[in-house]
């Protein structure tokens, strides 16, 4: 069964890497890419999605702001979220752990093995 995956990433190359990994994994043929948190909320508000791959540092609305707003303004959006970070800073890790609704998180780039483990948990 194919999944509907939304990639939230402002960096073009990172988005390309994630998209390629997702496509090569076979879980999703055409993942949707948006470049900030607000665009992601807008998309989720209008479309059904099975998994969100969320970057942290983005313009307009960053990953954490996205999580906050999703909870307060869009409580009906219950899609599982995986966070991807290019920083191994403790501060960021602590912050990520403070969002129990985040399914998992990983350092970039997205790896096939990590994606598989996440998808397995979705089923």
């Amino acid at each position, binding site marked *: 069964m194919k999944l509907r995956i939304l990639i939230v990433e402002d*960096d073009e*190359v*990172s988005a390309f*890497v994630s998209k*390629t*990994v997702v496509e090569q994994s076979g879980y999703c043929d055409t993942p949707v890419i948006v470049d900030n948190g607000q665009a992601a909320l807008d998309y989720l508000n209008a479309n059904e999605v099975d998994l969100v791959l969320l970057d942290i*540092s983005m313009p307009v609305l960053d990953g954490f702001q996205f999580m906050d707003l999703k909870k307060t303004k869009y409580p009906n959006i219950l899609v599982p979220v995986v966070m991807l970070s*290019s*920083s*191994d*800073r*403790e501060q960021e890790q602590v912050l990520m752990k403070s969002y129990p609704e985040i399914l998992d998180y990983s*350092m*970039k*780039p997205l790896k096939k093995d990590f994606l598989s483990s996440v998808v397995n948990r979705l089923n």
Partner: protein
Amino acid sequence: MNQSTEQLVPGLQSILDQLICIAHGHHDCKGEVTGEDDTLDAITVGLNMLTEELAQRELDLEDQNRTLETMLESVAESITMIETEQFSLVVANKAFIERVTSAPNLENDTPIRGLTLIEAAKKVGYSESQVEFFNAWIKESISRKKRIHRLEEFDYGQGMRYFSSSLTPIVEADRVKYLVYVSREITEEVKSSFKLSISESRLKQAQRISNVGHFNFSLLDQSLSWSDQLKRIFELPEGQDPSYEFFLNSIAPEHQELMNSVIGNAIQKGENFEVPHRMVTPSGKSKYLLCSGEAIRENGQTIAIMGVAHEVTKDVIAKQRIQQQKVALEESNRKLSTANNRLEELAYIASHDLKAPLLNFNALLEMLEGQEELGEFSKTLIAKMKQSAGGMNQTIQGLNTVLENFQQQEEAEVCDIPSIIDQVQLSIGSLIERESAQLNVSALAIEKTRFNKQRLESIVQNLVSNSLKYRQEDLAPAINISSYTKDDEVVLEVADNGVGIDLEINGDRMFGLFKRFHTHVEGRGIGLHMINSFVADAGGHIEVESEVNKGTTFKVHLGPESIAYEA
């Protein structure tokens, strides 16, 4: 018979007159004598009476003398009588003899009475000037025939003694026959008075030094009195008396209302006050005073206000400067905080903005590597690109470590040096084992120090890692860690037998960021820079001794607080 005898024996003259009359056969004399026998009887009776009378008078005189002598001996005053022919001492009471014999140069058995004044003075050891002083005093007393007082000062060997003395002339037939010297010791009184005058002088001095003046405002007669120092503080013109008007005019305009109010309250309600205020002197000088006043009350009415005014201009100016410095310091802190925030931003850039493209680059390389149709040369190029990206990744990580370390709290705590070394051995145990290194920690003279624990661990780990990295190829690394105190600092020493560093070439850039001294091993040139910064933050420094192919010794002076590990 002279006049004094007559005075002493009243009635004696009448008896003598009768005797003379009888002897000359005058019958018309007063009395009842008529015949010769009768006359002789009368003379005999008269003489007997006279003899008895004289004997009685003699006894009376002796009594009087004894009484006088007892009196003389019992008084505290030194008394002596000097006859003015030879100036010898005809009378000297016990107090006088005691005083004179307490003189240091007088032998105990020296008789006093009968000596001439000069002899006595010389025996007592008076100086020429003291003898001269006496002579002048005596001459004046004789010539003026009046009692003359003097204050005498003598040093009897146990400090100066003071006497209030007088010389009283006894005049007979218009001539001074005797001089009576009466002297009372007033040493204690003089000393007390001297002390009092010193206290007063010191009070004035203290007021001048501390710039404190006092005032007294009597409401009964509306009089205002100021101490000299208060006059100086207010610059009261010479010859002018202080007045309430002058006082109030001197108060700076912004404080006049306040001053009027506190004085009004002191008068009406008896409230005491302490008011800091500014004043302006007649010459236009601005001064700051702390004025404290106390209302003196009687029957529910304030009758006076007493108080002190302390000039605190210097303190106020110093406080203003401190305030300015505080503002400047706050500004510096703000700038520092901004700089820190920028540093944090830089850290973020290092960890994210630089790292993200690099991670993507690596991911893309891996994707490229997975392509089946790659030739050997392409594979070599990909491998080199990955190696290069790996180096860059290391550098970014190192930079990130430095920045994160600088953001750490710098709180010092008591650290156990052996535990820190154990921790380091645990962290890099595999490396130590791989290099077959010997870590000798037997020379830890000091086991405790005060330092930031995380940083101290980082220091030890970096130095030990360096010793392992820069080992000599054919010699197993031997690393000695010791600790001791020097110049009130704890010193941690790490010595190895490694390749060493040419300090002549590299000494200056030893602790620079990204400085590396050897190419045969991996290194980012961050560790030494970082530990040097840690030590400098704690007020310490690092000494390096090194010889190429012999080894290197780092002596880490952990700063002045490091010694306070027992506090």
